[in-house]
C-alpha cells in the first residue's frame, strides 16, 4: 500500500515535470528557430565579443589534428601575443563537421578541415565565415595559396588558407614483408593474412577503387555512378576482409600494432610513416603504382568564432617560416609556408618516398556532395557487418 503511494507521487511528479517542460519548450523554440534559420546571424553574433581581445589577448580555441599545434609553438605564441590557446583534437573530417554543426561553430575559433570538405560543408551546414585576406600575411604562403582559396570558394567568398598537405599510402615492415608495396592489392594478399590493417574509411575506399582501375572522382558527380563504383569497392573489400587483422581508427593504434609486429602492412599517412622510419628504418613509407591519395588541410575560421583577431594572429604565426619548420621537423608534415622545411633526415625520406614521378601522380581528395558521404557510410557499415 505504502509503496504504491510512493509510486503515484513519482508518476505525478513526472507528469508535472513533463507538462512544465512542454510549456517551457514552446517559449524556447521560437528564438532557437530564428538562430538556426538565418545563417547570416552567426557572424553578427561575433560582434559583441570584439571587446574581448582588448582585455588581455583572450583565448583562442582550436579544433585541429594531432601534431598541427605542437606545444613548443603554442607556448611561443602565448608568450608573443598574450593569447591563451585551447586545443581539441579530431580524428576525422566528418567528426569536425559534426562537432561544428552541433553548435553552428560556437565554441571554436579556428579549425583545420581538409580542403575538399570546406565548400561542401559551408553549403550544407554554414559553419565557417569568409576570410578577410587583408588580415592574412599572404607573402609567407607558397604557390598553393591561389588554388586553395579557389577550392574553398563558396558563393564567391574564399573560406580556407592552405596549411598542411600530405599523402596516404602504405607503410611496410621491410623485414617481414620485403616484397609488399608495389600495389594497394598487397592489402588483400592472402600470404599476409592477419598481418594487414587499414581504416574502414573514405581514403581506403579510394585506394581500393584506384587499385581496380576505377575513378571515383569522375563518378562523384552522379549519385548512381558513384554508387556503382563504391559497390565494386565494397565487393572487393568484403573479399579481402578475412585477411585484415583489424580496421584501425587512430594513428597511435596503427603505430602500436606495427611496432609489436602484430601487423606488417598497413595504410598510413606519410608523416606518421616517416617518423616511424626515423625511429626504426625497417619501416618504410611506400607509394604503390596506383599513386598516393593526397589531401590538403587548411585553416578556416568558425562562423561562431568569438575571437576572430586571435584566429588571424595564429594563421600568420603558424605559417611563418621558422614556426612551420618546427611542425615539419617534429612530425614530417609538409606545410604551405614558403621555404619552410624539416630536418635533413626527414627531407631525405620525403624525397625517397615521393620522387617527382610519384609527386605528379597523386590522387587528390575531391569535393563530395552529401549523397557521396552517405554512400561511403553505407559501404563502411556493410563492410563491418559482412561476415
Amino acid at each position, binding site marked *: 500500500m505504502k509503496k504504491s503511494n*510512493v509510486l503515484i507521487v*513519482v508518476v505525478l511528479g513526472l507528469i508535472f515535470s513533463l507538462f512544465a517542460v512542454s510549456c517551457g519548450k514552446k517559449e524556447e523554440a521560437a528564438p532557437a528557430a530564428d538562430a538556426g534559420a538565418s545563417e547570416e546571424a552567426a557572424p553578427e553574433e561575433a560582434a559583441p565579443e570584439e571587446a574581448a581581445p582588448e582585455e588581455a589577448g583572450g583565448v583562442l580555441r582550436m579544433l585541429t589534428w594531432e601534431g598541427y599545434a605542437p606545444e613548443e609553438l603554442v607556448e611561443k605564441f602565448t608568450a608573443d601575443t598574450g593569447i591563451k590557446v585551447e586545443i581539441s583534437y579530431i580524428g576525422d573530417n566528418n567528426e569536425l563537421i559534426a562537432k561544428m554543426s552541433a553548435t553552428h561553430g560556437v565554441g571554436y575559433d579556428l579549425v583545420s578541415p581538409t580542403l575538399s570538405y570546406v565548400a561542401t560543408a559551408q553549403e550544407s551546414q554554414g559553419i565557417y565565415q569568409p576570410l578577410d585576406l587583408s588580415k592574412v600575411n599572404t607573402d609567407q604562403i607558397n604557390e598553393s595559396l591561389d588554388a586553395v582559396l579557389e577550392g574553398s570558394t563558396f558563393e564567391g567568398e574564399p573560406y580556407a588558407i592552405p596549411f598542411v598537405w600530405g599523402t596516404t599510402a602504405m607503410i611496410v615492415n621491410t623485414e617481414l614483408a620485403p616484397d609488399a608495396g608495389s600495389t594497394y592489392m598487397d592489402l588483400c594478399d592472402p600470404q599476409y593474412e*592477419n598481418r594487414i590493417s587499414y581504416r574502414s574509411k573514405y581514403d581506403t575506399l579510394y585506394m581500393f577503387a584506384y587499385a581496380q582501375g576505377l575513378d571515383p572522382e569522375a563518378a562523384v558527380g552522379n549519385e548512381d555512378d558513384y554508387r556503382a563504383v563504391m559497390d565494386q569497392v565494397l565487393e572487393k573489400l568484403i573479399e579481402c576482409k578475412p585477411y585484415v587483422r583489424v580496421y584501425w581508427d587512430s594513428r597511435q593504434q596503427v603505430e602500436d600494432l606495427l611496432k609489436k609486429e602484430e601487423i606488417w602492412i598497413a595504410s598510413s599517412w606519410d608523416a606518421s610513416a616517416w617518423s616511424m622510419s626515423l625511429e626504426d628504418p625497417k619501416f618504410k613509407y611506400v607509394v604503390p603504382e596506383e599513386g598516393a591519395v593526397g589531401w590538403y588541410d587548411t585553416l578556416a575560421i568558425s562562423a561562431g568564432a568569438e575571437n576572430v583577431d586571435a584566429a588571424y594572429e595564429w594563421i600568420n604565426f603558424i605559417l611563418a617560416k621558422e614556426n612551420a619548420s618546427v611542425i615539419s621537423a617534429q612530425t614530417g608534415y609538409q606545410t604551405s609556408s614558403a621555404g619552410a622545411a624539416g630536418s635533413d633526415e626527414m627531407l631525405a625520406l620525403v624525397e625517397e618516398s615521393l620522387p617527382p614521378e610519384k609527386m605528379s601522380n597523386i590522387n587528390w581528395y575531391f569535393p563530395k556532395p552529401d549523397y557521396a*558521404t552517405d554512400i561511403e557510410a553505407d559501404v563502411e557499415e556493410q563492410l563491418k557487418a559482412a561476415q
Partner: protein
Amino acid sequence: MLEKIKKYRRLWGVLIPYLIWIGVLFVIPHIKLFGLSFIDYRSDEITLGNYSKFFSSPLYRRVFLRTGIFAIATTMLTLAISFPTAFIITKILGKTMKSVVLLAVILPYWISELIRAFAWMVLLRETGVVSYMLQVAGITSENVEFLYHNGTIMVGLIYTSMLFMIIPIMNSLDSLDDSLIEAAYDLGGNFWSTMKEVIIPHSGPGIMVGSTMVFMLNLGNYVTVTLLGGKNSLWFTENIYNQFIVRFNQNQGAAFGVILLTFSVLLVWLSLKVTKQDMAGAM
C-alpha cells in the same frame, strides 16, 4: 488527493533535485530526440521515413538483432556468474573476508570503462600477457590472438557490468534471514530445493533489478564493444554513432535511438510481467 500531497510534503523536498535531474538530463533530451526522429533530414518535413528505413534495411535489422541477442545472452551469463558471487559474499564469508571480497569486486569500477577496455587489450592481444603466459606454461608454442572475437566482446561486457548485478542481488540476499534457510533444511529440503523454493524467490527483485541494469548497459555499450570486437564488432550503437557523426543525419540517428529505447523498455516490461513483479516491488 491534496491531503496525500501534504502528507508527502517532505518526500517532495527530497524528490525535487531528482526531478530536475531527470527532467533536464533525461526527459527534455528524449522529447527532443523523439521529435527529431519524425523529421526528414533533407526536406525538414514530417515523415515516418526514418523508421521505415530501419525496417526495410536488412543490414540494420540484422545488426539490431545481433545486438539484442548478445545483450540478452551476456545478461544471462552475468547473472550466472554474479549470483553465486553475491551468495558467497553475503551468506558464506566471515565479516573480514566479506569486506575484502566486496572491495575486490568494487575496485575495478574506480577506473573508467575506457581504461578497463584497454587493460583487456593489453592482456588479450597477440603479444599480450595471456598469450605469453600460455607459452611459458608450454601449452602453445606460438602467439595466440584472443582479441577481436565475439567471445572477447562478451568477456568485456560481463566485466563492465558485473557490479550492477552483484550489488542488487546482495541487497536482497542480505534481507533473507539465515534462519529461513536453516528451516528449509530442517523441513527436509536439500541444496537445490532450498535454492529453488526459498533463496531464489526471495532474491527475485534483486535479480530483476540487476538484470535490467546490466541489460540496458550492454545494449547501450559502445566503447567496450568497438575496442574489443575489432573488424566484426558492429553493434547497434555504432550505427547510431555513424548517423550522427559520419552522415550528419541526426534525424535517422534519433529514430534509431528511439527504436533501441523502445525495444529495451518493452523487454524489461515483458520480463517484469513474466516474473510477476512490478518495478516498485523490484526496487
